[in-house]
């Protein structure tokens, strides 16, 4: 049997309004896509148990409201996060300025992979994934990397626990994409 000790990883998803944070979370946890998600108000989370290198890990994935105005309250929900996933919409350049990326299934792409990757490298080699929450492309891989990197860092946490890991995810509008950075 694998190690009996359960690990809880708190992962927060950040990004501009409408980039697909809720969609990504639901695709990863529930394997579902709906185009009827409402704008998130306040915060919510879903949990999912995954095996990472023979360890049972409970991922607690937090989804928060995107509009900047609500970020001041968001802080309460971010406390103790092990990793953060930054999502932007590849079709809306502004959401990249604001952060992460999703929606690669859409054709009207406006942020190049190269540009986003360059950004991630410049921030200390943050893992970067292009995803589609609609088509379930790369979502599993992105969150698996989230779990893996966060778990690997767990041993160093005593030293650096002030700064959660980052993972960048991109999403396509209507179809999400992720970039993932740890």
């Amino acid at each position, binding site marked *: 049997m694998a190690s009996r000790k359960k690990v809880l990883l708190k992962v927060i998803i950040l990004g501009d*309004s*409408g980039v697909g944070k809720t969609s990504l979370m639901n695709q990863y946890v529930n394997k*579902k896509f*709906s*185009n*009827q*998600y*409402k*704008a998130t*108000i*306040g*915060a*919510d*989370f879903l*949990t999912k148990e995954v095996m990472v290198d023979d360890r049972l890990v409970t991922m*607690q994935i937090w989804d928060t*409201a*995107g*509009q900047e*105005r*609500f970020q*001041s*309250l968001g802080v*309460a*929900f971010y406390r103790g996060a092990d990793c953060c996933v930054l999502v932007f919409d590849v079709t*809306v350049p*502004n959401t990249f300025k604001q952060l992460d990326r999703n929606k690669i299934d859409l054709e009207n792409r406006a942020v190049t992979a190269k540009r986003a990757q360059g950004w991630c490298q410049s921030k200390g080699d943050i893992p970067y994934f292009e995803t589609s929450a609609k088509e379930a492309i790369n979502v599993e891989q992105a969150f698996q990397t989230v779990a893996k990197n966060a778990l690997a860092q767990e041993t160093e946490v005593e030293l650096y626990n002030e700064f959660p890991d980052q993972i960048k995810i991109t999403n396509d509008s209507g179809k999400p994409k992720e970039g993932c950075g740890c």
Partner: protein
Amino acid sequence: MATQSQVLFEKDSVFIHVNVNSHHSDKDAHIPGKVFIIQKPEGTFIEWKAEEILQVDGQNEQEWAVIGSSLSVGYKPDTGSGSDVPTKEEARRKYNISFDILDLKSFKRNAPNHGWAYVIFILKDGTTYPALHFHSGGSKAMLQFLGKTLHIQRSPKDNRLFIVQEHDPDMLSKSFDELNLFADSQGDLVTKFIKDPYTTSLAGFSKVTNFLKDVLLQPDAQIPRQREEVADILSEDIPGMEISNQDEPGYELITKTKLPSRPSVSRGTPLTGEQWSKHMDSDGKIKDIDKLKDVIFRGGVDPALRIDVWKFLLGYYNWQSTYKTRTDERKRRVDDYFRMKLQWKTITAEQEKRFAMLRERKCLIEKDVTRTDRTHKFFGGECNPNLQVLNDILMTYCMYNFDLGYVQGMSDLLSPVLVVMENEVDAFWCFAGLMERVCNNFEMDQGGMKHQLAQIHKLMQHTDPELCSYLESHDSGNFYFCFRWILILFKREFSFPDVQRLWEVLWTDRPCQNFHLIICLAILDTEKSTLIENKFGFTEILKHINDMTGAIHLEETLKKAESIFLQLKESKKLPNHLKEILGFEVSPDNSASSSNKTTPSSTPVFPEVVQSASPVKTTPASTPVFPPIVPKLELSARLSSIQTNGHSNPSSGSGTAVSTPNNDSSIEILSDTCDTAVNNFYN
């Protein structure tokens, strides 16, 4: 071992009621399904699956209840199932439930004397599933089956609540009594008391009244408390507790601040068309505004009347207005609306390029409009023209109140108003009136939200110190889990008809302007034992509260909230800061804050925004003064040369769904004798 799943238990005729407040006649409100306990290779699971629908009937138009009045609406009915519209089957399937029983934290079983038993399962992370209603029995059998696998203990405080005990190899063998799920006894408090040495010894040292026992004798009392924890409890200033030395020398007498008991209250029936017309005199003036508001507070408004009554409640029409002044007022409102709409409509692409703020708002509104109440028939389907109306009203609101702009949550507030008004201009002004009431919620620094969450905290310190200290000690004293409730006035927690009922009750400002805060207390009071006995922490509390969507009984909650209000009103030693929240007259003798006598705390912090549609905002609820509403229309008069003809909608390409103002559905006014049969509780 088993590589295949094995069904250990199954029961059909188990229903999910989509909305607890729905009527039995609503056939879509009850989804039939089957419940299973299944042994799978990866563990034992409890599952509920919606019954497959064998035939899809062609009655699409029956799928959603049509809300509001009988006036027909000009939007296109859905034709077939576009990719946007989930089929009925998909809609049902989304309620399917499946979880590992090792994740189960507790369940509630309610078995009324008449009617169906239901079971609510709550997981360790706070996830709370919709109630499963066993229409042909079987809930007891199922739970007894579970009792074979899990160690389950009935809550001593709430006999409907059963807590799954963590598997603990060191646990002493439990007496069989604890497994007796369906006995009537609520658990043997004395036995538990004796088992807990710390509590017991404390009780021996001093005279401790019920309150301390309440605090210490929580259901976890069987696990000996840590010394530090007990010390914490004692050293803390336990809210609501007074210590006096006078009665018996040598002893401290500890007593709980007694609140008067909660009086029982009853709700009434909605305002009828007949009552409404009787409330107006021959000029169309409302005769007794107070009485009318009392009726609306007690029972709401008949849905068909909302289109008229809401215009008063939301300050579109002055309460003192007559037929004649309303006609004039409406004309001005129409002109003013289209003047403002034209302002953003006429911005060219070139201009927009250099107008980042407008661009951003436009983008944000677009994103939210496409995801606002799309499951409601009024906004459902692809290319629904009502979405354009929603968009245009929100854009125009940005011009009306550029300082505030568009903030997420506003589209939620607008949607029920638009569904009732069925008219762009009327919906706009009613929405603007609604925003006057709640604009503090959307401030940049979230000050208004923080203030209200703090007010809930203060109120609960007084009404329920036990729950309050529980929440404080579980990182939830900030009440952030109430954020969504407050921001959009419970819009996401109730069905459309219920939220409309709730809002019209709140808009009467009865029994006080902060009644929505007391509604929060009432809901939390109902959930108290679930939160405490499951030992929920910050995350689980949030999850449980978020999952209560559609599961809150509106009328029961309103009754309880009013009852709490009356309890506070009768309370003798109510601190001044609570009196201010509740709009009571503040006693002049103490407290620096008492200077603010006539200004309830909900007075808008946005004085510059108070322009037109302010319903009785600055007077306490108990003093019915109704300042005339005089919109500042000087600007519109000066700009009248550019205003569009109010009878054409400059936005519209083809098929704007909501009627433009030429369809003036003026109010029929029948004058008659005054309605006297009003439950005039507050006068």
